[in-house]
């Protein structure tokens, strides 16, 4: 048997490692992977293992919290990752973004109590903004030239303006129903958000063949 070339050695005999987020994105991702021909049974297994292999031993999934996905990919322990643009931009990550899956679509928005339009405070105090996305909120209001004070909140962000903790919130909005039910309204959109595939900068090149094959299958899965 001929000795494999250096390029072949770099691209064979190892499974592709993919960091996937637990929760909402995973639920939307599984049908998409399935349509692409990927064996998703291991992702559906109802257990607490964090590393799942497909039956063929070609794909290894790491189940992570969404915010941790860019870290695993940037360090190279995962070749690819699935993550929302919101998490990626908030946390930052020196990675490639070869494919936008166009699932999990929503947008990042500024919202507040109905009837209290968004404006700078007249008493000179910086606007107090409740959000999990403190970095993106700072960037947005910096572009407007407004000084703000961010209050980091992990969940139930809509509560903050209702009880006077913050003046407004910056949060993901999908249908707007949660805002509506809590007497809030959207003031402005900061950016559109969707789920993307990210790739480690070195893995994308050393394992180009397998990664391109996987990405093509995912793209075809969207069309079918």
């Amino acid at each position, binding site marked *: 048997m001929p000795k494999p*070339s250096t*390029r072949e050695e770099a691209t064979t005999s190892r499974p592709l490692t993919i960091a996937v987020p637990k929760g909402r994105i995973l639920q939307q991702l599984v049908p998409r992977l399935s349509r692409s021909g990927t064996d998703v049974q291991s992702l559906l297994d109802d257990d607490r293992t964090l590393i799942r292999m497909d039956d063929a031993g070609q794909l290894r999934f790491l189940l992570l919290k969404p915010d941790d996905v*860019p*870290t695993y990919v940037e*360090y190279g322990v995962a070749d690819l990752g699935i993550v929302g643009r919101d998490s990626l931009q908030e946390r930052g990550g020196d*990675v*490639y*973004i070869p494919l936008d899956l166009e699932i999990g679509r929503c947008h990042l928005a500024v919202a507040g109590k109905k009837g209290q339009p968004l404006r700078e405070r007249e008493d000179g105090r910086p606007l107090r903004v409740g959000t999990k996305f403190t970095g993106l909120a700072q960037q947005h209001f910096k572009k407007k030239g407004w000084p703000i004070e961010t209050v980091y909140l992990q969940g139930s962000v809509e509560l903050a303006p209702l009880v006077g903790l913050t003046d407004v919130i910056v949060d993901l909005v999908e249908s707007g129903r949660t805002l509506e039910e809590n007497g809030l309204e959207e003031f402005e959109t900061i950016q559109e958000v969707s789920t993307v595939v990210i790739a480690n900068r*070195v893995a994308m*090149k050393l394992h180009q063949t397998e990664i391109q094959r996987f990405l093509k299958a995912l793209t075809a899965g969207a069309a079918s």
Partner: protein
Amino acid sequence: MSRDPVSGGAPPLSPVRDSLASPPAGLRDVLYPESARIRGLCRRLMGCFSTHGYDPVMTPLYETEHALRRGVLRRGESEWIRFVDPDSGEVSVLRRDMTPQVARMAASRFRNRPVPWKISYEGQVSRRMRGRSKRPRQVTQVGVECIGLGGALGSDPAVQTDSDTAVLMAEAAAAVGLGQAQIELGHAGVARALLSLVPVEVRGGLRQALVPKDQAQVKRILQGAQVPQEVVDCICGFMDAYGDPSVLGQARKISVPGPVSNAVAGALNHVQGVTARLERLGMGDRLHLDLLEPRDLTYYSGLRFGLLSPGPGELVASGGRYDGLLHSYGVEQPAIGFAFDVGHLLWALECDGASPGMDVLPRVVCAGPSGQHAQALREQGWSVNVLPGSPTLGDALAYARQWNYQGVVWSDPDTAAGELAAVRVVDSREARWGTVEAMVKSAGWFLKRNS
């Protein structure tokens, strides 16, 4: 309250719990054996550069900010760590990389000497990285600069110098055991030309989307700016132009708008010339091309290259041509160079299963009556630590284990003093007894047992 005579009044540190016992965030202490591996790698890399005529220099720990705020010297400005020099009162910058310092040094000290000026360097640089997960603030670099050799784009002298420098990078990697890493090639001229096709106001955002190869975002930006479809197709085509050398053919089929077609063709010809030379040297199956790399476009002026290997998730070494660098110091000389990130190199070697950079001769503890053998062993290049007093063999072994020594030299008290000694392999408790001469001869066996 009485003053502590040693600390001058400050309460003594609790070494385990006190936060003052830790270095500042992002910085770290490097202990043996990692420190020995890093030093060993630096020494071998510098040795390799020396065989190619590169003279080592040492650069200052910091420069004034004023000196670095000109032209291409501003590279990586967002990562600078600044402070006020207490003597001059000037804002200063811890060295982020050594290339600007070498350029300053060369422009002022070597300007009357014939070219090429071939310079090598090693040392730590400091960075303040943001917007990413990996944020080391201290990086050990080893690199070279070759100043004064260049030529017109695609010309034989330029292709030869660029190829030789990329080959030196690969040769240095091989010298430390990373002989099969992939060599990445690209050219700054492609990204620069393509960015000039879009309106100035969208270039910054477009470049930011090109860095992560974010095709969806690039299309959104170009369509939002109502850029002609021909330009969209061209830029998106080049985004996919990475892979083995066949991508050059793929890139040549892309329709490049007239205003930049010559610039792009020139850059591709140059990459093709370098690729052909490296293929003739038998490196063809190690080449990886990435023709649209938009990082540091104000800095790089021509060929870019790097070393890809599993492990660190980032390039092990990187460099390229920066013909505008010396201009910042009033000297018109072309320049090319590269640097290894030694932390990444170590990571790649360990991932490759190598035992990188360690000393090649044994490192042992000498105890008890065997102390008289220490000097003889040192003369053979061994690292010998003579323990004071009269420790037992058990104490000497415990010390050796704690401090990562490979063995203990111990005389057998039942035999004639000074005639016999033993080397004891620390972990397996294997031992070889014999004369000092026999021990030195057994160094190969000793190291093999401890590798």
